[in-house]
């Protein structure tokens, strides 16, 4: 037996260039043009989890991503880490997709590979949009269980796993069986470095690009037109600071500061931040 493992990855703007990221005031989308991208950091943890599972039980790791054509180098990078084949879902018709349309497209892409996937790994959320919705939606499209925010994953058997998911005040433990979708968090592992030998092997691995013609998705479920989410507003916050010099004796200055804080909306009443009486 051998496992069929898929990993969904997303290119995101390189954090080194966050200061260059802007938001288009009209389309309300992140302007990524000209900004170098990297594999979404937590997606690398997903790749690592997939590779470890393959190393344990054998099988195949397939990378899939819905992204513009220039994302091919990110898929090649995943292949260099040790994945076996990669599929880039790229078409102008996919542009502007919300999480629902994205997860639908990914599900169609996974189906198109013709492989019966035992497990699909995703990063819990992307570093840019951070909606954290795609993995769960993907599980729903695929009609398989899905676990989110997985920080520990241990295979009890080839298709039976002990899983821990983070919740607000602790964690939950699960026993899960394939097929399923697992969205991992950064704590789950430390992604391996890409080796030079991996880079050399990657160029001979299968990397295909599929568009609408190849995938034949339902047109009302892809791209901007197939996206039910309508963002209310999205804008670049004004981070300008203003300064004001307050003069007077210390007591007057403190009084003025407190008045200004109250006027600015800070609720100080009910709090007792006095040091009277000492420790």
């Amino acid at each position, binding site marked *: 037996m051998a496992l069929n493992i898929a990993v969904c990855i997303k290119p995101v703007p390189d954090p080194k260039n966050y200061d260059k990221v802007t938001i288009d005031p009209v389309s309300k989308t992140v302007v990524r043009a000209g900004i170098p991208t990297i594999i979404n950091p937590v997606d690398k943890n997903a790749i690592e989890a997939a590779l470890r599972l393959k190393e344990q039980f054998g099988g195949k790791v397939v990378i899939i991503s819905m992204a513009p054509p220039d994302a091919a*180098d990110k898929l*090649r*990078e995943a292949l*260099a880490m040790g994945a076996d084949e990669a599929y880039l879902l790229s078409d102008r018709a996919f542009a502007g997709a919300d999480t629902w349309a994205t997860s639908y497209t990914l599900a169609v892409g996974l189906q198109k590979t013709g492989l019966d996937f035992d497990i699909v790994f995703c990063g819990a959320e992307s570093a840019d949009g951070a909606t954290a919705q795609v993995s769960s939606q993907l599980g729903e499209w695929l009609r398989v269980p899905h676990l989110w925010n997985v920080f520990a994953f241990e295979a009890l058997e080839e298709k039976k796993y002990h899983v821990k998911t983070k919740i607000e005040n602790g964690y939950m433990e699960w026993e899960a069986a394939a097929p399923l979708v697992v969205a991992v968090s950064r704590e789950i592992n430390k992604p391996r*470095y*890409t*080796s*030079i*030998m*991996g*880079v*050399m092997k*990657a*160029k001979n691995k299968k990397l295909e690009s599929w568009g609408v013609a190849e995938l034949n998705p339902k047109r009302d479920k892809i791209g901007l037109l197939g996206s039910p989410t309508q963002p209310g507003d999205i804008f670049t916050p004004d981070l300008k600071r203003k300064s004001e010099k307050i003069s007077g004796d210390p007591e007057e200055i403190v009084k003025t500061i407190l008045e200004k804080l109250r006027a600015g909306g800070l609720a100080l009443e009910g709090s007792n931040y006095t040091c009277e009486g000492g420790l």
Partner: protein
Amino acid sequence: MQMYKFTEDQEMLRKAVREFVEAEIAPHAQEWDEEDRCPVELFPKMGELGITGIFVPEQYGGAGLGYTERAIVLEEISRYSGGLGIAMMTHHMGAYVINTFGTAEQKQKYLPELAAGTKIGGLSVTEPAGGSDFMGQKSTGELKDGKWVLNGRKCFITNSHVASTDVWTVRTGTDDKGRPVLSTFIIEKGTPGHGPGRKENKLGLRGSVTGDIICSDVTLEPSQMLGKEGAGSKIAMGAIGELGRSGMAAICVGILRGCVEESVKFANERIVYGKPISKLQAIQLMIADNRVDYEAANLLLYSAMRLKDAAQPCTTEVSIAKYFASEAAARAAKRTMDLMGGYGVINEYPVGRFLRDALTSIPSGATSVIQQLIIAGDTLRG
């Protein structure tokens, strides 16, 4: 940034190495410099990545790549640690001579561990009388009762105290015309009579160990000879000439990139009179000069490596690259210190280390004057 264009594969390789260097080398470079310690524990990790065995053939566990890729690796390491750069450069030379001149048995015996980084390579050529008086070396090898007995002292040897596989050149006789016959031997760490001596306290490239190695009646089987008797000159000069000097050029290109990046970072962050100093034209001129020095050194290095990969003669081109890159790195580091004002001499910033590393690179692999003589000789021959 970078006018020279790599292939897609080379770009991917560079990205992979850079990711490792930024995570595992950059945070510790200052500490290795201050402690003057070679991080030998990192070699097996670099082995897993293919860095230590960059041009060791795949059959021996290496990446089987070329000189351009090796230069990329050294540039990336030396962007943050010139000291580790020269340690790796020397390790590559140790592996190179065994791979190029070794027998099948020697390759099988030594290359897998050198490629894996579980053993560190060294090359011992220079003697107290001077590195450039290559044929005048005094160390000897005598054949006694079917075994070679080596005696002598090597100095200024990188990896002297950390190498587990040392390659020595010694004088094994004199030819018909009275010229010395040099031969080369592989000596394993722990061989009786072989061991490190004085450790040098260097100005720069700290984080690599440099010192003496002594052979005192070291007895070796004939199977430890590398290449044929009398091949020592060819082996040592082959390694030092194009491989060593191109390695030093790559290290200096790394230092130059460090100067560009650190000067840009500082100029954008340092606020004087209410605005970043990058807005000042005097500062911009320095940034431009740093960039030009980097680009020129980079073009010279990688153009020479393209020739080397194509098995074309490139001794002069490598000398040009090494001469220019090392001098340019020193002036760029000094320029970056000027740009930073008082901050330039604070060791919290790496630029002082860049200057010390660049100055130390100038005599490594032969001084600028020797490079000039090689370049002039080739130019005058026409």
